[in-house]
């Protein structure tokens, strides 16, 4: 038995365990719960409308027949299996879920071992690894592709389910539905992993392939190692609070007792999703080479939607718990959050929205979307059918109270989700309707501006409510608490808004051009408002903290530091929450900096330098200068060179990655150029890539900037491999198919980032852009780097484009991200929660 068979056997075992668990939970469920499983919503609504009661209800009559049969079957089965009571079945269901977590972990581990071994019979290994990869990427490659990531998803789901099931052991009689929800979801994933070829991680080729295709080069980045698992944990764990909420609803125990468990799991899920999204931004910024961190890309949107819904849920849960309001709404939000997490998985993994114009579909798309639709209807029924139990204890009194502002903010988040949803689906469904030539709808792709135009005002309003809400009081309107809570923050906010409006022109240099942020005027107005609201929010948070600290000092005689730490430790939901608010303020300030963003394209002319004896690089030099804002960019060397991954064989063309590597000096205006001479015997390439002096490194660490600083940006061209023959894929004319990736460079200070990326390279005389990666490969292998080929293959003059972005305040986004992580961690860690 080989490892592929062992892995598949684990998956089969897992499927059997899940099925067993589903069956046992059904057996252990009370008759009332079984009846509620088969209630038919239209009948229920019709009965309610006709005000029918008890046995006269249509739905009762329908379920009665099924339930009476089930009662007999159940009694017989329990007797047949020799169980003393139905709770034995529940114990077995629970144990099956524990064992299943182990089975799924073994399957995941098997796939990792196959990746490290480089088993060329396994389909997944062949399409996602190659011999030159570092072992680190071989292991993490196990979740880089579709079927591997689904298995990883399943592994996390089973592990977290085991934890949740363990936590529910005291409440077992009330929680059979928890088992059923979790096992049901597990069943869908293990079913896809076994049945659909796209999702089978242990699928094998009839005979071994010659070579692996390698890992997508974009994924070879540190962020990609931790970003997907964190995001998956976020997506997957949303199933747990949802399962808890639904089992509470089905058991009709809607008292407040379950809120702490529900809230803790939602915070867990929310924290991981948020951290995953922010890490993804960081990766996009550092790896994709387009100077941005957020592009409203379908995959990004897929994760943002459940995050917004969970944020909304966490806030209404507070209102539900404290005031007995919004119970229905809270349940609806957790239902939506879970299904949007699933929808996110569908968007990322089904391939439907990968390329807006490709319309390709993987086979798991259909079962997954059907599951989402059916599950949404199935669980929505409970919320609708139990709506009477979810009625508020009292009415909402004023909109400027704490609860009113939270409800309003909730509404804005839901509105955002709705807008994003339309944007995500507009390339697939004709949603872009116009009236100009009769009524017609067509498929369209939203540009950044389309999202920003709605999301920026909504975001700014949300930020304001986020700042104001903690200052409002329960049940009271704003005018009643104005003097006590609102006056100082509000005055500070207004003063700063006016001051910033007068001075921002001196601090930033607005480009005056319309950008993705909207027209320049609108973008600037919103950024001014953001700064004002940020100050208002920070002032509010400081005021809240100082009051809390003062109170503890007076009451308990603590010093300020003790009082501060105890405030967070003893009531972390409130004071830890404020820290999250603070991190959001920094994120928004960073985003607002985007409206002063500038993009410039610079064309530099380069001349071919003589071939350096013994070196394999092709060397060009420019010396041209160009200017942006307050900076001078001087183009230096440009090389076509080979680049090898960690375990590459340098003589193997399959491992041969071509790089275009360009070096620049970035100076602030007025700085002098520092000339350093190349030592005798050092190749130009080694000289250009020499390590910076220690003092320069320390200076860069502290300020993010070195006067006369050296910057280097590259483009790598990775070969695409055809695994059957183990050769590079080539087009008819012999050109290798290569995947280009960008390696930008940035100089980052607190005020702004200078972000550069090498673009295309043209032959200056012919005005064409030749395939230099191909020419270089030809020069390297066919001509063995001969001096004649150097002269003849490479044009004497080339023009290389450099894209430069000046991104103000990006550092604040990373600062906000770190703060989000730390403050979220305070909330997630299991301490300091009052029982």
């Amino acid at each position, binding site marked *: 038995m080989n490892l592929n068979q062992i892995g598949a056997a684990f998956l089969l075992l897992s499927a059997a365990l899940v099925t067993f668990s589903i069956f046992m939970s059904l057996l252990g469920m009370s008759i009332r719960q079984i009846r509620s499983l088969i209630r038919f919503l239209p009948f229920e609504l019709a009965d309610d409308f006709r005000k029918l009661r008890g046995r006269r209800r249509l739905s009762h009559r329908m379920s009665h027949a099924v339930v009476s049969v089930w009662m007999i079957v159940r009694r017989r089965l329990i007797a047949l299996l020799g169980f003393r009571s139905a709770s034995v079945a529940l114990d077995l269901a629970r144990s099956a879920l524990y064992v299943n977590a182990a089975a799924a972990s073994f399957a995941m581990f098997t796939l990792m071992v196959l990746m490290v071994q480089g088993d060329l019979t396994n389909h997944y290994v062949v*399409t996602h690894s190659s011999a030159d990869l570092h072992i680190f990427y071989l292991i993490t490659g196990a979740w880089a592709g579709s079927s591997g990531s689904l298995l990883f998803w399943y592994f996390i789901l089973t592990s977290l389910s085991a934890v949740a099931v363990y936590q529910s052991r005291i409440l077992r009689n009330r929680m059979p539905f928890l088992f059923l929800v979790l096992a049901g979801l597990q069943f869908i994933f293990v079913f896809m992993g076994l049945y659909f070829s796209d999702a089978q991680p242990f699928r094998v080729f009839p005979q071994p392939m010659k070579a692996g295709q390698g890992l*997508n080069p974009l994924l070879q980045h540190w962020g990609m190692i931790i970003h997907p698992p964190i995001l998956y944990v976020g997506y997957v764990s949303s199933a747990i609070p949802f399962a808890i909420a639904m089992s509470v609803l089905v058991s009709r125990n809607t008292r407040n007792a379950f809120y702490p468990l529900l809230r803790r799991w939602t915070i867990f899920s929310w924290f991981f999703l948020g951290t995953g999204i922010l890490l993804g931004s960081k990766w996009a910024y550092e790896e994709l080479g387009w100077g941005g961190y957020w592009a409203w890309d379908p995959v990004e949107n897929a994760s943002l939607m459940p995050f917004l819904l969970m944020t909304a849920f966490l806030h209404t849960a507070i209102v539900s718990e404290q005031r007995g309001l919004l119970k229905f709404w809270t349940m609806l939000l957790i239902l939506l959050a879970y299904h949007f997490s699933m929808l996110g998985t569908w968007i990322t993994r089904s391939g439907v929205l990968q390329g807006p114009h490709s319309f*390709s579909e993987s086979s798991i798309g259909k079962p997954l979307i059907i599951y989402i639709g059916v599950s949404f209807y199935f669980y929505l029924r409970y919320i609708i059918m139990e709506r009477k139990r979810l009625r508020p204890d009292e009415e909402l009194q004023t909109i400027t109270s704490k609860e009113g502002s939270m409800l309003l903010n909730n509404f804005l988040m839901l509105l955002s989700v709705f807008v994003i949803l339309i944007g995500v689906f507009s390339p697939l469904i004709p949603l872009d309707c116009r009236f100009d030539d009769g009524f*017609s709808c067509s498929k*369209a792709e939203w540009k950044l501006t389309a999202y920003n135009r709605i999301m920026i005002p909504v975001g700014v309003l949300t930020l304001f409510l986020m700042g104001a809400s903690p200052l409002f009081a329960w049940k009271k309107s704003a005018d009643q608490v104005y003097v006590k809570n609102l006056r100082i923050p509000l005055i500070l906010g207004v003063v700063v808004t006016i001051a910033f409006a007068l001075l921002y022109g001196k601090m930033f240099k607005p480009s005056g051009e319309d950008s993705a942020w*909207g027209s320049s005027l609108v973008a600037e107005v919103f950024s001014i408002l953001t700064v004002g609201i940020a100050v208002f929010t920070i002032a509010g948070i400081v005021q809240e903290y100082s009051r809390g600290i003062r109170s503890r000092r007076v009451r308990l005689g603590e010093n300020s530091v003790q009082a501060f730490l105890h405030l967070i430790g003893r009531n972390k939901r409130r004071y830890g929450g404020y820290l999250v608010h603070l991190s959001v303020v920094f994120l928004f300030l960073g985003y607002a900096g985007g409206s002063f963003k500038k993009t410039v394209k610079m064309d530099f002319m380069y001349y071919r330098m003589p071939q350096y004896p013994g070196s394999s690089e092709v060397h060009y030099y420019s010396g041209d200068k160009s200017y942006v804002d307050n900076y001078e960019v001087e183009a230096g060397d440009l090389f076509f060179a080979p680049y090898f991954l960690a375990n590459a064989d340098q003589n193997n063309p399959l491992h041969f990655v071509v790089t275009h590597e360009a070096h620049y000096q970035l100076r602030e205006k007025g700085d002098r150029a520092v000339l350093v001479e190349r030592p005798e015997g050092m190749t130009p390439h080694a000289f250009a890539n020499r390590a910076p002096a220690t003092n320069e490194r320390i200076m860069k660490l502290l300020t993010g900037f070195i006067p006369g600083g050296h910057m280097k940006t590259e483009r790598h061209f990775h070969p695409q491999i055809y695994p059957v023959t183990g050769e590079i894929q080539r*087009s008819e004319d012999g050109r290798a198919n290569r995947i280009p990736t960008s390696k930008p460079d940035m100089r980052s200070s607190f005020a702004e980032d200078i972000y550069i990326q090498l673009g295309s390279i043209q032959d200056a005389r012919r005005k064409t852009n030749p395939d230099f990666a191909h020419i270089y490969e030809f020069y390297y292998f066919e001509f063995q780097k001969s001096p004649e080929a150097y002269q003849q293959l490479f044009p004497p003059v080339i023009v290389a484009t450099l894209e430069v972005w000046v991104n103000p305040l990006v550092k604040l986004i990373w600062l906000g991200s770190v703060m989000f992580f730390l403050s979220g961690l305070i909330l997630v860690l299991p301490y300091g929660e009052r029982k």
Partner: protein
Amino acid sequence: MKTRFWVLMILIIGSLAAMVIFTGGSKNTSVMLADASHVVDQPSKYQEHELRVRGFVKPGTILRYGDKADFVMTLDGRDLKVHFDGGTQLPDTFTDAAPVRADGRLAPDTAGLLVANKVEAKCASKYEADYAKKGDFTSARFQRMAADEKVPGGDHPK
């Protein structure tokens, strides 16, 4: 209270909708996706909108002058004339029979001329080249290509 809440909601949505409408509707903020054959059949539907049109370069129609180029895009037996204005660089994969995606607008006066500022082209792979030789310029081929594409490049990077 409920009435006041809903009035506020309607005000917020109303003002957002007004902002969207008064800043030019969806015309400038979204790119309409279209097949070259549809654009030829119903030019009036696509007039005045920013378009992303897909099709194949009709062999023998490329005419380059400096940075600019004229060519004919073909799909499902319909031909669309394209003028590339040299706003960006033409990719070197832009050759006869290559699958292309052109971003631009239909010229206002000339019927059925697409003025493109960006052209993306794909190199037909060795395994795909047979279709190009046979002159298979149909939308079915796009779907086949999309299915093939999933294998070599792996999955979406995010």
